[in-house]
C-alpha cells in the first residue's frame, strides 16, 4: 500500500466532499435567487448580506425539525432510502477529473480520485443505484403519493438512461475511451475541438436525459408538487428530507460537471496550452475553468426550470421512447458510418 497515495486521495476526497456539499447548499440559494430574478423579484435577502446566510438558516431549520417516521412504513427501508440516494450522489464525483495535477516539490498531486478506464460505466452504474434510493424511499413510505412518485422516478430513469447511454456510445466511437480524463484530454490540443461541435445531436440528447435523470423541471414528475403533494419524499421530514433535497442538488452539480467534461472540454479551454503557465498555476486555472463551466450549467439547469412547464406523463414517455431513443440510435449509426468511411 502506497501511503502517500492514500493520503493524497483522502485529502482530495475530503476536499471534493466539502466542495460538493458547499455547492449544493449554495445551489439552493442560487436557485431561489435566480427564480426571483427571472420573475422580477428579489429573492432571499434577509439572512446576512444579500441573504448569503440563507442556506445555513435552512440547514439549521432542517436539523431541528421533528423527525417523523410513519407507523405504517418499513422503518429500515425508510431510513436507508435517502442514505442511498445521498451516497450515490456523492460517489459519482470520484471519476471526474477536476483539473490538471499540482506539483508540490516533485510530488505529483492529481485532481481525480480514480481514473477508471471504465469511468463512464461506473458513472452509469452508480447513477442507476441512485434510482433505488428514490424507489426505496417512496415504497417504504407506504403512501400512495410517494409510491406514485417513486414509480414515475423509476420509469423515467429507465426510459432516459437508454437514450443517454446511446448518446454516450456515439461519443465513445469518437474518443475511443471510457476514461473521463482521456475524453477530456481528447478535446484539447491541436486539431481537436470540443465534443459539442463533433456531437451536437448527441449533446442535445445527453442534456435532455441529464435533466430527466436529475428529476429537474421540465421532467420533475417524481415530485411534481402540484399533483403528488411531494412525490416520493411526501412522508419524509427533517434531515431525511434534507438528504433527498440535498442529493438532488449534488446530482445537478455532478451532472453539470459531467456535461462540461464530456462535451465542453472539461478543464481545458481553447489556447490553454499556448499560455505556457507554470504547472501549479496551470492547475489552478484549469480548476477555475472547469468550475466556470459547471456554474454555467447549474445556472442553465435553473434557467430551464423557471422557463418550461412540466411535461405530462405520456409526453414524457413519448419523448423518451419515440423520439430520443430512435434519434440516439440514428446518431450512433451516422457517427459510426462517418468514422468508417471518412477517417
Amino acid at each position, binding site marked *: 500500500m502506497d501511503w502517500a497515495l492514500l493520503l493524497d486521495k483522502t485529502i482530495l476526497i475530503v476536499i471534493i466532499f466539502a466542495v460538493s456539499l458547499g455547492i449544493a447548499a449554495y445551489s439552493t440559494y442560487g436557485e431561489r435567487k*435566480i427564480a426571483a*430574478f*427571472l420573475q*422580477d423579484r428579489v429573492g432571499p435577502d434577509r439572512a446576512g448580506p444579500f441573504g448569503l446566510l440563507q442556506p445555513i438558516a435552512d440547514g439549521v431549520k432542517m436539523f431541528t425539525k421533528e423527525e417523523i417516521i410513519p407507523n405504517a412504513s418499513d422503518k429500515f427501508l425508510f431510513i436507508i432510502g435517502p442514505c442511498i440516494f445521498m451516497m450515490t450522489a456523492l460517489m459519482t464525483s470520484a471519476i471526474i477529473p477536476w483539473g490538471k495535477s499540482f506539483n508540490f516539490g516533485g510530488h505529483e498531486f492529481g485532481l481525480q480520485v480514480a481514473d477508471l478506464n471504465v469511468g463512464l460505466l461506473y458513472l452509469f452504474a452508480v447513477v442507476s443505484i441512485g434510482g433505488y434510493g428514490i424507489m426505496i424511499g417512496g415504497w417504504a413510505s407506504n403512501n400512495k403519493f410517494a409510491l406514485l412518485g417513486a414509480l414515475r422516478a423509476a420509469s423515467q430513469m429507465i426510459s432516459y438512461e437508454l437514450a443517454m447511454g446511446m448518446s454516450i456510445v456515439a461519443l465513445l466511437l469518437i474518443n475511443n475511451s471510457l476514461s473521463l480524463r482521456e475524453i477530456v484530454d481528447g478535446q484539447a490540443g491541436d486539431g481537436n475541438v470540443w465534443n459539442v461541435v463533433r456531437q451536437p445531436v448527441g449533446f442535445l440528447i445527453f442534456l435532455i436525459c441529464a435533466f430527466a435523470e436529475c428529476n429537474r423541471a421540465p421532467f420533475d414528475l417524481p415530485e411534481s408538487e402540484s399533483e403528488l403533494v411531494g412525490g416520493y419524499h411526501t412522508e419524509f421530514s427533517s434531515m431525511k428530507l434534507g438528504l433527498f433535497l440535498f442529493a438532488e442538488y449534488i446530482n445537478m452539480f455532478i451532472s453539470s460537471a459531467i456535461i462540461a467534461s464530456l462535451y465542453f472540454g472539461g478543464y481545458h479551454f481553447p489556447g490553454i496550452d499556448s499560455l505556457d503557465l507554470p504547472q501549479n498555476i496551470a492547475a489552478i486555472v484549469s480548476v477555475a475553468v472547469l468550475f466556470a463551466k459547471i456554474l454555467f450549467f447549474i445556472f442553465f439547469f435553473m*434557467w430551464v426550470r*423557471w*422557463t418550461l412547464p412540466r411535461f405530462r406523463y405520456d409526453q414524457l414517455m413519448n419523448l423518451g421512447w419515440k423520439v430520443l431513443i430512435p434519434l440516439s440510435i440514428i446518431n450512433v449509426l451516422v457517427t459510426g458510418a462517418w468514422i468508417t468511411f471518412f477517417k
Partner: protein
Amino acid sequence: MQLTNRSKVVVKHDLNWVEKLYLPAIFNGLAITIKHLFKKPATVKYPEQKREIASVYRGQHVLKRDDKGRENCTACGLCAVACPAEAISIEAAERKKGEEHLYREEKYAAKYEINMLRCIYCGLCEEACPKDAIYLSDRIVPTAFTRGNFVYGKDVLVEGIDASGRVDVSKRKKKYEMEGSPKQPLLNK
C-alpha cells in the same frame, strides 16, 4: 358581431415538423426569461421601503387638533351615524373649568373608538364631520395579533400636540376648505 377589435380568432392547427421539435419554442422561452434577469425587480422591501400611495389614499384615521393644540371633536356623533360599517363609537363628556386648553368647545369625546376591522375606509366620517375633526390619512393600519388590538382608542387616533406629532391631511381637504371657508355640507354646494 364584433364590438371591439381586440378579440383574436384562435385557429388550432397541427404542428409542423419544426414546431414538433419544440426547440424553437424552448429557445424563445429561454430568451424571454433571460430578459427578465436584467429587469428591475418589482419588489418593495416593505418595512424599510414604503410603497408610494395615491395622495388621496384613505388609510388610518386621525383626530385633528386646532392650531392651539385643542381637540376639534365635539362628540356630535355625526361620523358614527354616517358610518355604514358602524365602526365608530363615541362617549361624550362636558368640558370642565381649566380644560379649555385641551378641548376647543364645551363638549368633547371622552371616548372615541374605531374598530379598524369593521371600518371599510370609505371616508364618509370625514365627509360628515362639521368640525374638521376626523380625517383619513395616508398611513397604513399595522397588523396586530388579537382582534381587540384593532379597536383604536383616542390614544392612537388623536394626533400629537407638538409639530412632530401632527398628521398632514391637506391633500385630503377639499378645495374650498383649503381656501379657509368653513366646511359646507355637500347638499349646499
